[in-house]
């Protein structure tokens, strides 16, 4: 593991009187797969939103790739989200009336310019070379999530964030998606931060941190 891609110091997020994330000190080395576990309301998604630049903390610092993220203006944050981060949600959030390849091209469009050949290659890499022209409703849950992975990696992010990406999948599909993520991480060398409920899924990571009531309570290295 090389330099730190994420460094937080006293990172806090409150909503009025409620403190969703209590001062958190966290370091994530470049290329690591970090699993974040905790019950509902433990602050997992809040942390993910802060790292993903979707939300701003109430206090503390958040360095991404050595640079303070909080110093950026809205344009800077948008650029960060566009070029630095890829996100996979539990709900796939694919545009229903676009085909798989068009959904991936849409991500290219928001990033820079669409390139169909590249989008096709990305879908081939996630094993969907035969489903390019299918709409989301014509795909299985596992396939939809693989389109999401292709969409998340198409812009070569350095950081891939997953918010329960396998939450809606059966066991077979879950394993398939996680294996795919592992392969892609080796090829593309991005860092994964994945929020999950599932201990078995968390175990695919290099390290797991546990949040409880907004506080980092424990962390452990995976044996895998």
């Amino acid at each position, binding site marked *: 593991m090389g330099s730190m891609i994420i460094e937080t110091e006293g990172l806090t997020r409150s909503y009025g009187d409620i403190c969703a994330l209590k001062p958190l000190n966290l370091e994530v080395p470049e290329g690591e797969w970090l699993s974040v576990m905790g019950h509902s309301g433990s602050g997992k998604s809040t942390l993910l939103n802060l790292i993903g630049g979707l939300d701003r903390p109430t206090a503390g610092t958040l360095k991404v790739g050595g640079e303070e993220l909080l110093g950026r203006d809205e344009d800077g944050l948008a650029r960060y989200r566009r070029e630095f981060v890829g996100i996979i949600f539990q709900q796939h959030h694919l545009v229903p009336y676009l085909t798989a390849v068009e959904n991936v091209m849409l991500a290219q469009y928001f990033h820079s310019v669409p390139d169909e050949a590249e989008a096709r290659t990305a879908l081939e890499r996630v094993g969907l070379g035969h489903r390019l022209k299918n709409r989301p409703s014509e795909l299985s849950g596992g396939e939809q999530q693989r389109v999401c992975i292709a969409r998340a990696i*198409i812009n070569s992010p350095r950081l891939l964030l997953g918010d329960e990406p396998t939450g809606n999948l059966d066991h077979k599909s879950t394993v398939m998606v996680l294996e795919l993520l592992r392969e892609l991480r080796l090829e593309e060398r991005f860092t994964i931060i994945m929020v999950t409920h599932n201990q078995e899924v968390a175990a695919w990571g290099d390290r797991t941190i546990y949040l409880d009531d907004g506080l980092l309570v424990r962390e452990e290295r995976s044996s895998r």
Partner: protein
Amino acid sequence: MTALKLIPHLVAWTLMVLLLLRGFPGRGRGVTLWAVAGFAVGTAGYVLLSRMLPVKIPLEIIRATVGVSFFLLWVVSVGALYRSTVRDFPLFGVQRLMASPFAAWLSAVAAGLVAGGICASRLPGIEGAAAQLLAPLLLALTGALLVFAARGAERRLTSSLTIPPSSLLGALVALLLFSSSSILLLDLFSPLSMKVMKGIHDFVHQFMESILIPDHLFIRPPIWRAIGLLFGKEVGFWGGLVIWFTPAILLLLAVQLEPLPSVAQIRQGAQRRRVQAAAITTKRYRLVIPLLALTILGMAVYQSSFPNVEYWDPKPLTITASPGGELFIPRKGEVPLDDGKLHKYLYKGGGKEVRFFVLTSPDGKLTVDLDACAICKPDGYGQAEGMVICYYCKTLIPLETVGKPGGCNPVPVPFTEREDGVHLDAVTLVNSWSQTVQATIRTGKEMGK
């Protein structure tokens, strides 16, 4: 009133300076200084020349300068298009020249001279030495203040907006044309339209002769009517528009057709796309100025076509002929004929309505002319600023030459001048009108000859 008339010219001048400042980044001081100097000298130069020489001469100098700059724009825009589509297009050191401070200074001073001259031509002829000195002085000062205002405004412009030299020239020339098109004697569009009409007519005629196309006698009327469009009067206007707008369109095309940088060396798709997207964004910003030039040129055409000048255009008085077929206009009627203004009359006879006018020229000679010329549709004439203007083609005819036949001059009518007034023959008048109007309404029937 004068201040109101000056506003569009001063706005154009401010925009010119703003563009110059952005077009020559890092040369702000030089551009400011030379622009102020150019404007002041332009103003003073015009005022001096118009005092020493007939006012037409300094105006003609300005018009020629704007005309030459328009031609230069044509050359540059064609060059720009070639450069973006042909890889080995030679530039003959133009780029090096444009990067030098002299280019910035020269552009600023040249724009200032012409803009100052145009603004000064709008100053009224005031009596009294002090007033004569004060007005140009105030104008030069305003010009200088506006240069500094432009400098302030330029700093607030987004840094993404860059102006390549060709676009800069395009916008500057467009602004000069806009500024000059509102002044009858400086307008270039109307004379251009006339020249284009004649040019296209000659060209098509020669071309058809050269490839031995038969005359209209042998050709199907719909086909001939289509060919005839090229001989119509409108072709001058539309052809003029094409010549007017093409340089700005070529500049737009030059930006649009410029190939994106090769990204084949980059081995990551996202990075490749980012480079392409950045190039596309830059390109879009570079389209802004040619688009602006296009808009300003459009405004110039509008000003030229609908000049904000009040014409003396009296309602024609209906007159009747004596039993012997003679028309008589008394010298000292309701309005005396020798007031130097157009006196329009309407005569109904021989199934025709004939409009004609009587005018006493500045040298005191009476002239009777049809309210129509031998070239244009018979839209008639108005009188403004020491000349008459053909409403159809906007050609200006000095009062001295009214009464002489040819070109767009009103067609003279033979008449007899006596002590009591003007006598003319009704039949001759009607025949003259019929021949003239018939000739100008006919579309190209004569062209094969």
